[in-house]
């Protein structure tokens, strides 16, 4: 065997190892979801929960708890975590910025503004059932923010810095409008909005779950297909261009994917911080930057983190279900600082 062949053999076994790590993350996500499923304030025995899940003979109340509360919550945690971390991974690559996350460009602020129009102003589309109005408005505003961003950066024809600057402007503008609405809101509406912004899995139903699954299933394959183009972008915009990547187009469509995922997640469960930032960073430590492994690893890492956060939200204060967005932020903050310190040391 020549040395080139030996090197290629080592390269391939390295790739197999990374594929195994991705598979291990998938198993970890399923296990975390299972723990999420059997954790809860009602103190159901594990065997009972599993029997209800398998469709066996259980009390009616047990079946309702498992099928209508715990299962949707556990699955939504997986999906939202997956969506946010995948979005964060793409965002960090296309903005060439390790501190980017799905909400960097104002998607969450715009979604909060949309939610506020529903909660405070009572605006809703006439044909929609009222329980959907908050989600739909949030989603519509988040997508509106994306449209505005594409339009503005398209006019200016800019690179990643221009996109980031417009996104930050959008973030503050939407935030200002939310404050304005909060100023005129009734006490009830204000409380409802504040709870919504904290991010919670408590109100998850099957309909929302299906929506989230559809968005993720529609978007993820396109992200995976862009793997090599995104990997090339790690070498800088100019190298990617000379490799034959249409960088503007890649960035435009990646932002569409990120916004769809982030808008879907935020409209279903509110603002969930740090999963979209920490998920990709932890995935990177496990499999590196080659996006054929990095993107699925990020997705699965996000699912694991979010499921664990869901478990923690039930256990941290006994008898109280904390908003899961609070938990991810509380766990995420130390991670964030650690990343900064680590980056400093390396730099």
């Amino acid at each position, binding site marked *: 065997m020549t040395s*080139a062949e030996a090197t290629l053999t080592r390269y391939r076994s390295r790739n197999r190892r990374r594929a195994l790590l991705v598979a291990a993350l998938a198993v970890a996500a399923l296990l975390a979801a299972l723990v999420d499923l059997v954790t809860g304030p009602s103190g159901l025995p594990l065997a009972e929960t599993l029997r209800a899940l398998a469709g066996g003979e259980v009390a009616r109340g047990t079946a309702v708890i498992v099928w209508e509360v715990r299962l949707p919550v556990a699955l939504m945690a997986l999906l939202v975590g997956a969506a946010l971390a995948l979005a964060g991974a793409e965002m960090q690559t296309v903005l060439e910025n390790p501190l980017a996350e799905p909400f960097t460009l104002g998607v969450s602020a715009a979604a909060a503004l949309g939610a506020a129009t529903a909660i405070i102003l009572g605006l809703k589309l006439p044909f929609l059932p009222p329980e959907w109005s908050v989600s739909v408005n949030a989603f519509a505003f988040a997508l509106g923010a994306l449209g505005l961003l594409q339009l503005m950066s398209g006019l200016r024809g800019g690179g990643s810095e221009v996109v980031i600057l417009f996104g930050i402007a959008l973030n503050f503008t939407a935030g200002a409008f939310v404050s304005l609405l909060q100023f005129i809101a009734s006490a009830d509406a204000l409380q409802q909005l504040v709870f919504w912004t904290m991010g919670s899995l408590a109100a998850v139903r099957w309909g929302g779950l299906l929506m989230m699954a559809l968005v993720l299933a529609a978007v993820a394959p396109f992200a995976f297909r862009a793997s*090599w183009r995104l990997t090339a972008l790690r070498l800088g915009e100019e190298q990617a261009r000379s490799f034959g990547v249409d960088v503007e187009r890649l960035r435009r469509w990646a932002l569409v994917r990120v916004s769809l995922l982030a808008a879907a997640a935020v409209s279903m469960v509110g603002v969930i911080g740090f999963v979209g930032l920490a998920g990709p960073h932890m995935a990177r430590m496990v499999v590196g930057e080659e996006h054929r492994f990095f993107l699925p690893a990020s997705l699965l890492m996000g699912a694991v983190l979010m499921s664990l956060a869901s478990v923690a939200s039930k256990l941290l204060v006994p008898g109280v279900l904390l908003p899961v967005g609070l938990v991810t932020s509380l766990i995420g903050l130390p991670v964030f600082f650690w990343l900064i310190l680590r980056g400093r040391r390396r730099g």
Partner: protein
Amino acid sequence: MSGLSVASVTVAYGARQVLSGLSLPDLSPGEVTVIAGPNAAGKSTLLRAIAQLAPYCGLIRLGGTDLAAIGAAQRSRLVGFMPQSLPGGAGLIVLETVIAALRAGGGASPSGVETTAMAVLERLGIGALALEPLDQLSGGQRQMVGLAQAIVRDPRLLLLDEPTSALDLARQVRLLAELRRIAAEGRVVLAVLHDLTLAARWADRIAVLHGRRLHSFGAPSEVLTPAMLAEVYGVDARVERGSRGDLMIQIDGETADAR
């Protein structure tokens, strides 16, 4: 014609013109051409315009094809570009970056890309670095990886921005000999080089840029004259022929008016 033609290229950054209406005589396959000139003469800008990495006015064609009129993916199979340095922090190993250079444009079929990428690294003498993280290599090693990324698609036009700036003597010779081989296989090779002695030794033609325009163009012995060196670089110099006929440039100092 099958070579590179550059006609009336103007590049401006804001109000500042970097190149104004620059044209080059046609460059033929098989030839190595060096772009030389003082700092800020627009050498890298010209190279980046040809690579379609800098916006320009004018017409740049390769084998009759307007390079601005074709898509990025198609262009990447015609043109290879080696930057002066690769950015840090990519988090990739060398082989991954060369495979990315092959696959990102979408043209290459997945089968065989690994072997192709590995063969290029071997050819450049850096096969042993294939599994090393790019970020941990020295400047010179990274420059060789940049060359591998540029030639792995087997382009018809190879553009190099100061390819020897971080290389030791042995690697300089190896790279320049490699450029000669690449050209001899029927490709157009165009490189920005600062070192005129290297240019004299390895180039078929030298294009000297000065004051946003083409100052002179031709074989090294025609272009590298004391008059050119005084006018363009502001140095008093003698140009002598060595025992084997190669040109030697002896710099005596700055010209009187430069001082």
